[in-house]
């Protein structure tokens, strides 16, 4: 089988999603704890649709207060600042890829998987006392974005990869090598670099299947987060298989000797609101 030259296609037709301005603005602002609240409130107040979705989330049964919350500041208090910023980043990034889906690769399980990977990445980065845990969330959220790009650029080729992976009980990364010159991790890393996202995010995406190849700890963070989220069975990245965790990556995050019962309980807690968060991504258009 002849492989599809991904680079050639990218050069010919770079009709790719642009980095949403909200994301670049927020990533910058969130580095400064003093402007965090203000930057988020401004962003939400500026965007009525975003505000409506934040209120819908806080009024969902998961957070369910008996009386409806209509006050954005109360919503921020109830949800917590961290959750609100993650939701704003998720909504903005998912919107950039709206409409890229197929029957074999539906958007909801995909985003549930990636939001979960973002949350676990953020948690693992914080546990390992790595700086820029917010960036770790984005790295996890975008780690499989290359799959959406492959689907968009080569719908038939990607459908073939999915079919073969499922039929042969293999990982997508194993099968895509036969069909494409660049796999989903490399392609996603390429887009993140095009978008001029911070180096940690680029490495987290590009090397999430080969963490030993990167100097940046986010490669280990996203690699481990992806496997753990699959172990929990939250969402779907295209197949239901749990991949092995690289021992070097595990060690690098200080997880050698960790009490796994405690880690599982901690992550379970951290994943509790994923379904509700993903549900607001699909509110209000794009799927009708």
């Amino acid at each position, binding site marked *: 089988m002849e492989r599809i030259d991904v680079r050639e296609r990218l050069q010919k037709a770079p009709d790719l999603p642009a980095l949403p301005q909200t994301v670049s603005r927020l990533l910058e602002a969130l580095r400064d704890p003093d402007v965090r*609240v203000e930057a988020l409130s401004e962003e939400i107040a500026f965007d009525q649709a975003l505000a409506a979705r934040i209120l819908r989330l806080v009024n969902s049964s998961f*957070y369910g*207060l*008996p*009386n409806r919350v209509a006050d954005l*500041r*109360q919503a*921020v*208090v*109830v949800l*917590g*600042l961290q959750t609100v910023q993650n939701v704003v980043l998720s909504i903005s990034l998912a919107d950039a890829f709206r409409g890229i889906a197929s029957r074999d690769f539906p958007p909801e399980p995909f985003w549930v998987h990636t939001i979960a990977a973002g949350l676990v990445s953020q948690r693992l980065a914080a546990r390992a006392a790595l700086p820029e845990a917010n960036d770790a969330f984005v790295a996890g959220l975008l780690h499989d974005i290359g799959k959406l790009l492959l689907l968009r650029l080569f719908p038939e080729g990607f459908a073939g990869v999915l079919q073969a992976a499922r039929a042969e*009980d293999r*990982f997508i990364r194993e099968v895509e090598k036969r069909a494409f010159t660049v796999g989903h991790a490399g392609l996603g890393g390429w887009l993140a670099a095009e978008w001029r996202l911070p180096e940690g995010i680029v490495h987290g995406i590009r090397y999430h299947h080969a963490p030993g190849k990167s100097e940046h700890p986010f490669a280990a963070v996203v690699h481990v987060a992806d496997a*753990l989220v*699959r*172990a*929990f*069975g939250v969402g779907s990245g295209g197949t*239901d*298989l*749990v*991949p*092995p*965790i690289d*021992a070097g990556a*595990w060690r690098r995050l200080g997880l050698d*000797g960790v*009490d*796994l*019962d*405690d*880690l*599982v*309980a901690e992550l*379970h807690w951290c994943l509790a609101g994923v379904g509700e968060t993903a549900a607001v991504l699909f509110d209000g258009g794009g799927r009708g």
Partner: protein
Amino acid sequence: MAGAVRMPVGEVPEGAVLARDLHTPEGQLLLRAGTALTPEALAWLAEKGIDSVPVAETPEAAAEGGADMAVRAALDALAPRFRRVAGDPLMEAIRLALARHLAGHGGGEGRGTD
């Protein structure tokens, strides 16, 4: 039941959690028990005219119990997902921890073992 202490809003320490649901004097629910009392939350409550809040003393330890049967059933249920990593020691340990968690055994039970 975990203990609760009523504290003035201005004296709530960092990391504290609301012990009980909090209502306005008119009976409207403001925040659920378990909400983190962050500086933003406290400032907002102060604006709402709340001067003191019930703060949780210690989180309750997870109850221990259940039978090994439940863990075994959970391990079996997880096996299909873990089929490509069967025999990998770390992944098997993760599967066991997940099974124990699903069966209600996990989280803190093994604390202090080494």
